[in-house]
């Protein structure tokens, strides 16, 4: 579904990613793990068009993502839940979800998508007229994922969904990722919480200093010595 080939990216003269090759197949959940500053967020941002790559190609179902204007990439079926959620704090939950359905294709399915999101997050239905910025971190994360799902995406990019949340809520977020997956959605998830993320994904990539150091199925990754020592603490 999603293919990255020898991708370079960065900010100005600072290069953050070096020759990344990465694949996500339809129906899969793929994790990208690695330390702070490894380039994980940059990877997500370059896929969704928030920054443009220096070199290399990105294709989504055979279509060229790099040649697509940033605001059209969501139309290719890619929805990005950014780091720190980035809700519109002074808009209501309803209006935040409405923004997720901004593209003409999504507007036509607005009522149907809203029902889907409210089924997934009944809490959001209760909070629909509340300002998004006044909700708890966990609720905001639900709203951010709900907003991304409003566009009826094929591929969901999740950037550190567990960051800044209480441990109980982190559990809920990963439960949620499982549920979203079971609906047939393809997921690419970036996480520092390696132990948790390897439980919900099929495959994972280890990103360090802007390059992919290792990749494999979750079981293989859990057995890799370097990952065990550096990230799992066993």
């Amino acid at each position: 579904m999603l293919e990255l080939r020898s991708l370079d990216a960065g900010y100005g003269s600072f290069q953050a990613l070096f020759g990344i090759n990465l694949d996500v197949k339809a129906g899969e959940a793929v994790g990208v793990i690695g330390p702070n500053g490894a380039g994980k967020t940059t990877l997500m941002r370059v896929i969704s068009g928030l920054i443009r790559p220096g070199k290399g190609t990105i294709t989504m179902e055979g279509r060229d993502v790099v040649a697509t204007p940033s605001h059209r990439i969501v139309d290719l079926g890619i929805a990005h839940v950014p780091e720190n959620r980035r809700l519109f704090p002074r808009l209501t939950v309803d209006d935040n979800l409405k923004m997720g359905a901004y593209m003409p294709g999504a507007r036509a399915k607005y009522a149907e998508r809203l029902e889907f999101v409210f089924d997934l997050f009944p809490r959001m239905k209760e909070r629909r007229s509340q300002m998004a910025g006044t909700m708890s971190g966990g609720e905001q994360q639900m709203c951010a994922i709900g907003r991304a799902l409003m566009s009826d995406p094929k591929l969901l990019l999740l950037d550190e969904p567990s960051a800044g949340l209480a441990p109980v809520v982190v559990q809920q977020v990963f439960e949620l990722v499982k549920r979203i997956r079971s609906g047939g959605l393809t997921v690419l998830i970036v996480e520092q919480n390696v132990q948790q993320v390897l439980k919900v994904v099929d495959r994972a990539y280890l990103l360090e200093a802007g390059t992919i150091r290792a990749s494999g199925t979750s079981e293989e990754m859990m057995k890799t010595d370097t990952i065990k020592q550096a990230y799992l603490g066993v």
Partner: protein
Amino acid sequence: MQAFLDIFDIYLLEAVVNGILLGGVLALLALGLNLIFGVIDVTWICYAELVMIGMYGMYYMVQVFGLPYWVAAPFAILLVAALGAALHYIVIAPLLTAPPINQLLATGGVLFILQSFATVAFGIDFRNLGIRLPVLAIGEMHFSYSRLLAFIAALLGMLAVYFFMTRTYTGTAIRAISQDRQIMSLMGVDTKRIYLITSALGGALAGLAACLLVLQYDVHPFVGLSFGPITFLICVLGGLGNFVGGFIAAFVFAEIISLGGLFSDLEWGYVLAFAFFIVMMFIRPAGLLARRS
């Protein structure tokens, strides 16, 4: 003594009502400026000069080409909306990431360009539509229809903006973009297009104000000076970019002008309003309803 109080009360009531009527138009002017500031984060110093061009548009369509007022008004609104969009495209867009002082200087430059253009193109004569609307008399109070009409039209215009901002996808995007510009593309929003629409909307509000003001005031190249400063003060008093604050501040200012004018000349009303503004800037420097950060 009683007779004196009766007359005084009537004048007072008349002044209060006139203040409300004036407040409607000032609120409309403030809304346009606040919209641009709140969404695009630039201040159109030349805002009142757009109103001036719209007033000339009305003058030429009605007096020179003989169009009825109702036919000319939509064209004047469209003209100023186009001007607002052009201002954004030509002047603001290239300076979006420039320091605020550069943006102020650039739109300040446009102010002088528009004034000079009007002087050269239209001359310095005072012009009017030659439309004299009757005066409504209620008991011993007198209200001009042009003010009533302006008030109602301004309220309807603001109501239309409110529904546009809250009910449509584009309106919601305009509110969202002021809160997080960077991630708008993730929603599929073309920020350039939203800025252009916002600028056209700000221009349209200036155009509507022009249609209403031209019924009450003569137009000349420097007429913008009569509305510009007071509009800025209202926006600052209400909290720049705060729509509700601007709305309230417009009525506060209008009442001070109107009631102040009651006790002596109208000019003293303006003096009081500006003095009030200065005092308020000491008490609440961020505005009546400062935006919570």
